[in-house]
């Protein structure tokens, strides 16, 4: 562990931010074309974020401000552990890679907690409803997702992301998306839930609860929240790429897979309406959970893998 590791980690977080922001902008353009219009410039998301940072901020007490910073710190800290490819990762020591899956699970919670704290600190009822919904949605998608990931960990015998990546690449690019089709589908549905894409966008829902947790944010805090959002999307999509799509041997492969996954999620999101919060929970606890358990049984007890 040297200072170089930290610098690489921050570099990865920064790279994730730039990557996701550009791809988000390109996706806005793609969606625009789908909706019979031109769409914004591809770098529009950068302009939005920097504009927000250039505005004056309104504070609602120190919990409100501190929560945002804590959330941003937590998310950046999480992103620092994320491997981009098999070789590019920040914290490695004599062949031991510190990129265990459970690091991400625990560190992501810091970000979420900070955001929940800050939004509740604003005192707006819409915000507290939004936070309540966000936590409920998280509870809903975490269970099937964790079952699938535990199956993968059980099957490959390790929980390091680079290890899982190598495991998939070794046997002639046998991706877990194909090897465990049910689990792959569940993984993608849960990814949609994590990203807050449309059938599960219940906690943002501008038309119902006025953009939920973000209702009281403006100016600098909202800018930080946007950065936080971009980096957390980067983490979630990268997790999916590494776990189900066989990771990446080089950076271009990673970019292509990343772009494909995010665009697909976005396109599906744009022709769907959103569920109510109770429908989200019942949805996740019905089919995805059943499919995840079936997949786990098939893999663990029968050992059948395509």
């Amino acid at each position, binding site marked *: 562990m040297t200072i170089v590791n930290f610098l690489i980690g921050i570099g990865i977080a920064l790279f994730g931010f730039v990557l996701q922001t550009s791809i988000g902008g390109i996706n806005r353009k793609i969606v625009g074309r789908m*909706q019979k*219009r031109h769409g914004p410039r591809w770098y529009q998301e950068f302009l939005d974020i920097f504009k927000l940072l250039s505005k004056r901020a309104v504070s609602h007490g120190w919990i409100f401000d501190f929560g945002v910073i804590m959330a941003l710190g937590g998310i950046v800290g999480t992103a620092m552990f994320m491997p981009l490819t098999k070789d590019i990762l920040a914290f490695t020591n004599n062949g031991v890679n510190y990129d265990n899956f459970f690091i991400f699970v625990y560190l992501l919670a810091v970000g979420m907690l900070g955001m929940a704290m800050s939004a509740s600190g604003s005192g707006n009822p819409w915000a507290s409803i939004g936070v309540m919904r966000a936590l409920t949605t998280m509870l809903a998608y975490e269970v099937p997702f964790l079952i699938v990931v535990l199956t993968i960990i059980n099957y490959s015998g390790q929980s390091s992301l680079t290890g899982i990546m190598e495991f998939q690449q070794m046997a002639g690019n046998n991706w877990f998306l194909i090897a465990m089709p049910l689990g792959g589908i569940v993984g993608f549905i849960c990814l949609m839930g994590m990203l807050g894409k449309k059938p599960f966008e219940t906690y943002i829902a501008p*038309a*119902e609860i006025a953009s939920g947790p973000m209702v009281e944010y403006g100016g600098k805090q909202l800018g930080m929240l946007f950065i936080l959002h971009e980096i957390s999307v980067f983490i979630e999509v990268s997790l999916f790429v590494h776990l189900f799509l066989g990771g990446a041997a080089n950076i271009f492969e990673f970019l292509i897979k990343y772009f494909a996954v995010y665009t697909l999620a976005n396109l599906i999101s744009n022709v769907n309406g959103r569920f*109510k919060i109770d429908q989200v929970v019942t949805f996740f606890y019905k089919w995805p959970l059943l499919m995840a358990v079936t997949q786990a049984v098939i893999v663990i007890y029968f050992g059948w893998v395509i």
Partner: protein
Amino acid sequence: MKEMKLFLGPQHPGMHGNASVHMFVDGDIIKRSYLLPGMLHRGFEKQMERKLWVNNISLIPRVCVPEPDINEMSFATAAEKILKLEIPERAHWIRMIILEFARISAHLMAYGGLGGPTGNYTLMYHAHVDRNYILDIFEKITGARVYHQYIVIGGVRQDLPEGIEEDIHAFLNDLESRLVEYRDLGIDNASIIKRIKDTIMLPEEVVWELGVTGIGMRSAVGKEYDVRKVVPYARYDQVEFEVPTSNYSDARARLDIKIKEVQQSINIIRQCLEKMPEGPVRVKPGRGQSMRWTVPFGYAYAPIESSRGEFGYYMVSNGGTSPWRVGVRGASYPQGLLGIEKYLPGTRIDDAALWVDTMGICSPEIDR
């Protein structure tokens, strides 16, 4: 949990128009609610008493913004009833074309508005594109996109421009082919069905209690209670059209009827273009000077089927150059005020915006 107070509007993305729904919620369930109207109050009824009959024509379209033509039609028919005025045959047919286009435009807007509360913005964008084509046709016929001031007392302001029939036919064919797409994106979309099926109910006894008309009534009662059929105005008794109904009024049934009505309106416009006779389109109403003509003493109520229900002007003239009293019966008045007070409670916060949207509540006509 303690009751919490929430405002849906006036500044809220889920609220159409400038009105506010105040809700007291317990958890996710609405316990009490009110509509707070009046943010769009302009004193129309007072303004009309102070203006000449001719001047009023420029004022009235502004009563209901999404569908201004019904105001002109209702005002003109009420005045013609008092005047006992027969207007030229061709004017009736042109009025019908305008009214049906206005209905399609309002339905498309309301149906696209489903995209707001449910989050399917693609539907909204597509619906607005088609609505914009209608506005272009309006601009060709009347010279204005939104406020046409085209239907006047004694006919219509001017004849149809040459070659408009081709434009109308081209647009209608285009729209008709796309109705399937609207169904797929909206009411037949699996994720949206979850939101609109078996929820936001409007049972028959509620219809009679509140006095709901229009699509809400027809979807609940299951009979062809349409002002165009029951009390025909213009030449609606000479065209063939169906009034779609249903016996089970949830949000999906009402939206379904909206799409079916668009189809019927398309048929009506085609028939109008076919059956329309040649001739003059306007007669001079009343007696007196060119502008300051008078209307004799009388009372009249002129109901019109708008996209949201029965819309009418109650008009009293005392023989002067301006109306003595004009009362506006907003089509969404009953469900907007009493409906929100009595029947929004019990639904969830998620449903409130959809409730307002599918009941067809138009705040400017409540406030005037």
